[in-house]
């Protein structure tokens, strides 16, 4: 049985060209970029070039890119680093109820450290409201962290409006752009973004790589100590082959972004159409027109996440839900809870399908017909 991957928002397969870019570096470039000899300089050149690509991809400058081991670390650095460095200016931080756990759990940690955190609500469309933010802002606010695109629903947040609003406020603006980066053109300058998180493996790059954009002049502390790497903001010898792969993935993404949007959007449409034609009842969580192309979060009335996902997997379909169910502990999706309330059944009957490089028109159709069969069997 052909296994079909519909979970690209969790992680995406590496592009062959990324592997090809990394391989020679792993074979021949072993120097430490900080070393002051030819081996070190050779590695350093790769690093500098990658940094330039990263900067260009979001209209930033090279010195504003801090390589990390991924999105979670970048989010931690943004929140904790800014909070610690700016506590003389205030102790209030604003984020949202639907952030990725990398932000949400970090905010909870800061709360324990004495910071005052406001979690903005999310409306039924899965979006934060700019007026709520206006209301929440105080003279004490030092940081606002709102994700660019929600990872469960794919809903695009009003980032530009938030950036605009904060231009006249002391608070820095951080956005987790892990899901947005591969699908939306980002201009940090224009959008008023001070800190921005990007991850490599979501855009077909290697795992273990990401960066935090830190705008010039942002006051931030490091979370770890050691060497001078990343201008002391993230000490530790750089993962050069990984960063080179990440760079290749970014380059490919920049060239192909519009094409990918089109293709993945087609897959999503095709998939949902196929479900409907097979007589499956479902509802879209969020608003299709405001979501990024690859993500469809669908609610299947009368079904339950555990049974759906297990059956999907036994039938070779890989998808996921926001509800974490490691070791059998069901935590209803905090994102859908934020949108619809804790007791809405959508929090326990919804699946996220995310399309990408693994897919073809054929396997999307095949997946939809398998999914339809299972949903009908479980809800009849």
């Amino acid at each position: 049985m052909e296994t079909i991957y519909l979970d690209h928002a969790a992680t995406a397969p590496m592009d062959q060209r990324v592997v090809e870019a990394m391989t020679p570096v792993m074979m021949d470039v072993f120097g430490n970029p900080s070393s002051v000899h030819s081996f070190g300089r050779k590695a350093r050149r790769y690093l500098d070039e990658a940094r330039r690509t990263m900067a260009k991809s979001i209209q930033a400058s090279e010195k504003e890119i801090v390589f990390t081991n991924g999105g979670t670390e970048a989010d931690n650095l943004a929140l904790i680093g800014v909070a610690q460095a700016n506590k003389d200016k205030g102790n209030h931080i604003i984020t949202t109820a639907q952030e990725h756990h990398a932000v949400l759990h970090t905010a909870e940690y800061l709360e324990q450290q004495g910071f005052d955190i406001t979690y903005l609500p999310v409306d039924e469309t899965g979006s934060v409201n700019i007026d709520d933010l206006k209301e929440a802002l105080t003279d004490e606010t030092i940081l606002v962290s709102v994700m660019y695109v929600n990872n469960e629903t794919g809903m695009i947040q009003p980032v530009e409006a938030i950036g605009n609003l904060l231009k006249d406020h002391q608070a820095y603006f951080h956005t987790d752009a892990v899901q947005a980066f591969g699908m939306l053109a980002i201009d940090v300058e224009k959008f008023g973004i001070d800190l921005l998180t990007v991850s490599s493996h979501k855009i077909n790059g290697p795992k273990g790589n990401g960066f935090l954009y830190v705008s010039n002049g942002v006051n931030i502390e490091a979370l770890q100590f050691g060497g001078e790497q990343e201008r002391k903001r993230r000490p530790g010898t750089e993962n050069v082959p990984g960063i080179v792969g990440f760079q290749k993935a970014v380059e490919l993404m920049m060239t192909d972004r519009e094409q990918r949007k089109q293709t993945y959007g087609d897959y999503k449409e095709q998939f949902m159409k196929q479900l409907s034609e097979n007589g499956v009842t479902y509802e879209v969580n969020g608003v299709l027109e405001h979501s990024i192309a690859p993500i469809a979060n669908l609610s299947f009335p009368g079904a339950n996440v555990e049974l759906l996902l297990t059956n999907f997997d036994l039938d070779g379909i890989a998808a996921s839900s926001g509800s974490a169910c490691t070791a059998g502990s069901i935590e209803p999706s905090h994102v859908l809870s934020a949108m619809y309330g804790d007791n809405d059944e959508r929090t326990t009957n919804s699946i996220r399908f995310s399309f990408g490089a693994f897919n073809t028109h054929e396997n999307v159709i095949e997946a939809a017909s398998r999914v339809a069969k299972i949903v009908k069997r479980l809800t009849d």
Partner: protein
Amino acid sequence: MMKDKQDTRVVVGMSGGVDSSVAALLLKEEGYDVVGIFMKNWDDTDENGVCTATDDYDDVVRVCNQLGIPYFAVNFEKQYWDKVFTYFLDEYKRGRTPNPDVMCNKEIKFKAFLEHAMSLGADYLATGHYAQVRENNGNYEMLRGADDNKDQTYFLNQLTEDVLAKVMFPLGDLNKSEVREIAREHDLVTATKKDSTGICFIGERNFKEFLSDYLPAQPGLMKTLEGVEKGRHDGLMYYTIGQRQGLGIGGSGEPWFVVGKNLDENVLYVGQGFDNNQLYSDSLVASEINWINNTPHQPFSCTAKFRYRQKDSAVNVTNMENGKVHVEFAEKQRAITPGQAVVFYDGDVCLGGGTIDDVIKDKDYLDYVG
């Protein structure tokens, strides 16, 4: 029509222990389409956010990866609370000694979990219990496990024939030592893992402390049946019939034992001597009777167990009008305890069982037992 083994899906309930690990291994080796599922029935997350279920699940994951089978988890916390734990507390409130494992098998493992397995397209559900299923002309009988010391049919007495038709017990014909040996031979990560002891949701914790989190303890007097005060008890729910430990009655002579309870007056009855006559009875009444196969023509003779790991005793069973049965013992029995199961056997075949309600001696209901 029998399906090929490779097309026969068997869902194995895996706890992260050696028994269910080996059950999965044996089925996989036989060529079945094996799926491992971890059941989470109880949330024991402590104040540090640590939960033993996470470690157990981790063991399930590692074993399944060793075997190359898919693994999943399912949560029955709500069902367990409603069907098993509520019953457990209610029985203690009534002064009885419940058997949550019997209830868990009846309501969770072989009902909710079985349904779950079936909705995953399973043909069979397998567990690591020490018991055997035998097909006999289209009837499914449950036999004792081959390992006398591990036989678990006592806990499975509420299973029905239609359930047994869908169940496999791969360890049924093995001894525990053989199971450990198989696990070692295959280098399973659970090969030397300690067996879990006690009631699953209490685990290694102090039983008294656990119970006091849920039921208010009402200390009261300890008396002999003749009315002589012998001290104080911590709450009737902490004691079971025949218990010696924790009474704290000093003095000379033979040790003291719990012989009964008076719920209305909150008095614990005690008696001196292991073989105290007050601990003995000659028959009992049981309810919640389940006959696994056909209801035997009554009255009839068979053997019975009144506690887990007890030797069988000869009994005579008679139907009563209210759906209960009267069980007469060939020889007097010590410390028959209301709330515990009475389980019937014909040779190695487990016939079924029920819950002990009343204890009788010389045609008198022993009200003091509970």
